[in-house]
């Protein structure tokens, strides 16, 4: 009798969990479907051109000022797409070494009190809202870039540049990379710390017991053992980078340029617009149906990018594991 009651309870418990899991899954699916439906108008017209063609800023302007019947539903976000990849990749290049380095110090090479302080600092950094990063980027990073890299001569020169005319004002790819890098570093560090801490202590003991130096134990044994956690951290940080909207919209310049390698170092001073910050920047124009659909299409591209990203990392991870 008693065990019967227990089974019923167990069953109810299981079903409660099931319902919440299904609801959670449905919710996520629902959000995706919602975004796709809203995006369809532009995507069906633009097709692949949506990511292979340029001219997003001008297309938004045209759509906004033309009457409902005459607007274009064709949008090309090549510049946004490339800027998104560039800012995220640049931020990762900045944040991954710093983050892993800090995590290694926290886990292995610092006094407990210092380690505890460091991890508090990291978690604090991880929870500073992006608007504050944006604000500081705008007040500190952008003026710094303008003062140290952009001369009046350079400004004039690029106003007439034959490849791509642009204004250099400090809001740039570089500012985006720096702000985004600082933003995702603590996330990366926190996740790396967790990953390293999750490695069984016995590996470390075994390594040290074999007379391998502490540093080598960390780099040759602990970090490889924490690999999947590290990958997860990088994916999450990259996801955060790809999706970061507010801070980037404040510092990256807001124009859908494709940075040109031919410009040399000025490549990094190009004002850019990322997919996510486009959604924020142009949201005031969302009352126009075509623009609304275009912005949701940016959302779709974001989703597809992260999907591709996450799948390919998973494949890499699997390949690494096989080895």
């Amino acid at each position: 009798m008693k065990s019967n009651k227990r089974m019923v309870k167990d069953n109810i418990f299981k079903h409660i969990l099931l319902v919440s899991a299904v609801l959670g899954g449905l919710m996520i699916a629902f959000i995706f479907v919602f975004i796709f439906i809203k995006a369809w108008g532009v995507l069906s017209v633009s097709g692949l051109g949506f990511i292979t063609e340029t001219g997003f800023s001008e297309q938004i302007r045209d759509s906004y000022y033309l009457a409902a019947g005459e607007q274009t539903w064709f949008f090309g976000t090549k510049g946004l797409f490339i800027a998104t990849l560039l800012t995220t990749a640049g931020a990762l290049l900045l944040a991954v070494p710093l983050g892993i380095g800090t995590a290694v110090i926290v886990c292995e090479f610092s006094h407990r009190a210092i380690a505890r302080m460091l991890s508090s600092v990291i978690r604090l950094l991880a929870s500073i809202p992006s608007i504050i990063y944006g604000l500081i980027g705008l007040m500190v990073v952008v003026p710094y870039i303008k003062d140290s890299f952009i001369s009046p001569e350079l400004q004039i020169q690029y106003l007439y540049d034959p490849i791509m005319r642009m204004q250099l004002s400090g809001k740039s790819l570089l500012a985006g990379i720096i702000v985004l890098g600082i933003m995702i570093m603590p996330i990366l560090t926190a996740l790396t710390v967790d990953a390293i801490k999750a490695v069984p202590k016995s590996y470390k003991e075994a390594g040290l017991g074999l007379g391998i130096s502490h540093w080598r134990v960390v780099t040759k044994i602990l970090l490889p053992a924490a690999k999947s956690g590290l990958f997860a951290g990088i994916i999450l940080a990259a996801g955060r980078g790809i999706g970061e909207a507010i801070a980037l919209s404040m510092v990256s310049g807001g124009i859908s340029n494709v940075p040109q390698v031919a410009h040399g170092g000025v490549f990094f001073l190009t004002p850019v617009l990322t997919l996510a910050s486009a959604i924020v920047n142009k949201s005031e124009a969302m009352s126009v149906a075509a623009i609304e659909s275009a912005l949701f299409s940016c959302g779709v591209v974001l989703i597809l990018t992260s999907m591709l990203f996450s799948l390919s990392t998973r494949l890499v991870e699997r390949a690494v594991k096989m080895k």
Partner: protein
Amino acid sequence: MRLKLFQDSVMKTLCYFAAVMTVAVCLGIILYLVIKGFDQLSPDFIMTEPNPTFSQDNAGGILTPIVGTLLLTFIGTLLAFPWGLSSALYYTFYAKKGKLRDTLSTAIDILAGVPTIVIAIFGLAVFTNPFWGFLSSRVEGVEGISKAFGRSFWVAGITMGIMILPYIIKTCAEALKAVPPSYIEASYALGADKRQSLLRVVIPAAKNGIITSVILGMGRIVGDTAIVWLTLGGTLRMTGLQPWYSPENWPSTLQNTGSTLTSYIFYTSPAGEGNMPSVAFGASLVLIVIIIVLHIITDYISSLGKLRDEE
């Protein structure tokens, strides 16, 4: 050997440098906010309500944004935490390994990359449906159309909950997975069924990870701007029946719009129209202090747990 050790120490120094950079950045940000915002801080600033104006002298204080931040965090966490934890339990201990789980974890990764403004628009679109009118309020007197306003503490809180749900599921699942299977086996061996094992052994064992996941989620709510701006209305004040703080008006307060510290910072910073940077910095400082307090509390909670573990 010597060369190797030398290389090691060079690399180690670089790592120390990274750690120092991290601390420097953090202290730099906080110091910057303190320098820029400290003058603004006063009991008056914290205890009065803000005024909607472009004039810095009449800006008022940040009482309602602070309350708004706390309210939203509370509602969002209250929704997402049990939902996320029970989903994580299901996916970790009941669901069969395979496609479903893979798909879900991919979906979660992807959702992390979707800007919250998209989720905000989603929330606004869903909750302006008159069916959800009880969460905000119906819009009266527009002929031929029946719509809900779709902006309120309830709506924003729920949208926040949905926004952080994937994170909570993911981080909770990770914490649960980290519990050694031997614990569960031991619990089974003592005659406990699955439910009892999960509730009495697994969840307590994963407690710290779960707390961390909740804190991360709270941090995201506290720090989000886009969802607040769209689904909470960005109205600076509490707009329900006044006075909003007397208990009989709480239901109305929750059904109406308001602001949070982030939306207030957005409004008052150059990014919004408010044009009151020093007020924005003052509010940022308060926001950081709230976040630090949140951290101290969780550190305290987890240190309690640790002490017990060590005994």
